[in-house]
């Protein structure tokens, strides 16, 4: 059962990710990215992180991507033009990436060969309660710091928007 779900949603995630890269229209990329996020959320559920899964949907799919789509609509961004000047990336990019993936797969195969199996329900530490407890006890300081970060982000956005206004 687990394997089935994993394969299905991993396939969806991969296809959507490829789509993100290949689609030439930003909206198409954005929607595929939402697909990736949704399937990753399901994988989180399989991994027993129900709260994080929901947060994934709410934050990424519900807020961040909406912003993206909003901006795309606002700028009415069309399909991108086929013009590029970056020979380095064209030449070195593909082999570098392939080497990267290959190496990582190698290491993972070697290092995590018997790191255990993921079975749905054998790890229930991801409930909202436990996450909240961890967040407000041992990770309180980082939490507060992130709140400050968000405040700063809000300020920056407002400043940028104002500059863009006048």
């Amino acid at each position, binding site marked *: 059962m687990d394997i089935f779900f994993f394969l299905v949603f991993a396939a969806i995630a991969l296809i959507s990710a490829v789509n993100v890269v290949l689609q030439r229209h930003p909206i198409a990329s954005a929607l595929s990215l939402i697909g990736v996020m949704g399937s990753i959320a399901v994988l989180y559920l399989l991994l027993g992180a129900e709260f994080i899964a929901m947060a994934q949907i709410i934050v990424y799919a519900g807020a961040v991507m909406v912003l993206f789509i909003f901006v795309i609509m606002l700028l009415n961004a069309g399909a991108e033009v086929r013009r590029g*000047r*970056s*020979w*380095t*990336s064209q030449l*070195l*990019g593909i082999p*570098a*990436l392939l*080497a*990267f993936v290959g*190496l*990582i797969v*190698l*290491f993972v195969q*070697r*290092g*995590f*060969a*018997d790191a255990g199996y993921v079975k749905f329900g054998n790890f229930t530490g991801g409930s909202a309660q436990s996450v909240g407890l961890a967040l407000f006890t041992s990770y309180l300081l980082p939490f507060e710091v992130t709140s400050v970060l968000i405040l700063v982000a809000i300020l920056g956005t407002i400043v940028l928007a104002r500059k863009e206004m006048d």
Partner: protein
Amino acid sequence: MRNLWLIPALPFLGFLANGIFGRKFPKGVVNAIAILSVVASFAKVLVVFLSVPDLAATPVHEHYFTWIKSGAFSVGWDFAVDKLTMIMLMIVTGIGSLIHIYATGYMAREEGYYRFFAYMNLFMFFMLDLVLAANYLILFVGWEGVGLCSYLLIGFYFVKKSATTAGNKAFIVNRIGDFGFSLAMFLIVVNFGTLDFTQVFSAAPGKPVGTLTAIALLLLLGACGKSAQIPLYVWLPDAMEGPTPVSALIHAATMVTAGVYMCTRSAAIFTHAPVAMETVAIIGLATAVFAATIGLAQNDIKKVFAYSTVSQLGYMFLGVGVGAFSAGIWHLMTHAFFKALLFLGAGSVIHACHGEQDMRHMGGLKKYAPWTCLTLACASLAISGFPFTSGYFSKDAILSAAYGYAPWMYWVGVVTAGMTAFYVWRAFWMTFMGEYKGHGHPHESPPSMLAPLVVLAVLSLGGGYFFNVPKILDSMFPIAEGAENMNLTYISVVFGLIGIALSYYMYVMNKELPERIAASFGGLYNLIYNKYFVDEIYDATVVNPMIIGSTTVLWHGVDQGVIDGIVNGVGTESKSIGGLLKQLQSGNIRSYATWVVLGAVALLIVMGVTAMGFAAGVGQ
């Protein structure tokens, strides 16, 4: 739990309210907040006083939270009340309330009205914290806090250069004293492992005399700074730049006596360090004489009282030094009464003369400001030790104790008492007798200023009789018996009367006499008039060398030479390196990203080479 914390907390609330929103408030509200907060804390003090039947038997001690904790050493935020503290609380809050009331009248037309009362309340908070403290650190917090407030309030008219410089002077001079105090605290921590009063004092007798002497002397240094004793008294006269209520509250009644209080509080240490006691006594006596002589020739009414404050503080230290702690505290209390009254009266006089402070431009005020005149007369009587006024009791207690310690001290003290009487009454005559020589029309002060004057007048007349501190503190500081020698009393009283008579003779009956004396003793007169050139001496010996040294060595040498050199060198170096590196920068994000990926790959390869063994190990 008697909620002692309320006592300082109330003024602090007042400070917050006035300090934050005061700008918006109308004056009425500011007054209400300022006065009520202090009066409320006075009421709280009374409540505590009445609710504790016998402070000697059951001193109240409250622990709120542990402030600092490292290993075995821990400092808690503790407040404690015993009889000594109770007396201090009474003085601080009571006189504080009176002076706040007075200030509403005095400051009525000033700029930054709310600011003034915010600072005053803040001062009350720190002073009460200082008095209530149950360990040296909390006391030190209050100690520094009152220093800050006095700095703020001396520099209250910050548009006046002299005021700001006076504030800085007070602050810096106090720093020296605080330095001593902190060293003393370090010594205490090292030797006693705690700062808590009860533990330290209980352990004090067992410690070697040398340590105790060192601690006591350092504490004395701190006390000298705060209580304006030789050699650190120079800031107090200049502190008169501040508004008169400030001079009355901080620089006469409460803050400057903090040193005396601290020494008395540390009696357990001092009594076991005879050398230190000797030093305290001598310093106190020297200060008393010294300041009194200066006071003889000052013409600024507030300066006169400032120097008299210094010399009276000298008396208190004398009392502490000769072991008559309770007498010192007694004099502290009575002095708080009559000196506050003197300053408030002086403020009223200045108010009457439209801000004129030079006594030579006053005179004849007794028909314009009768109440002020009357109350000031009471105060002057009290300070010159007129029989059965408050000053009479406390000063005699000190002097007789001094006689028991060393007769010559007594004689010097008596002479000083005479001088005190002389210059105080001189000021009185110059101000109130004769013809008005100032400008404009002098007028009596509003009732809000007179009421405190009257109250304080009553206290300075009867205070000494009604509050017999030595009896109250008998449990803590047993009265040294045998010193009850009435002749000593008569002598000092006589000296006081002589001083009064002399001043009357010189400044009322034939007024040209002083000039002639000044002329004949020109050199001496100038010396006194210029306060023994102490400020100039300090400038020459301490201040200027420091300034020169820091400009030449630290600024030109170290800062510009070394540090700037390093910084510029680094700058040029990085510039040249960057010149090399900038070839790599194509300005194209994606090529950068490619490099990043390549770097990652390289890193992975390295990792792989190093970690293969690990990976294989896991693999099996």
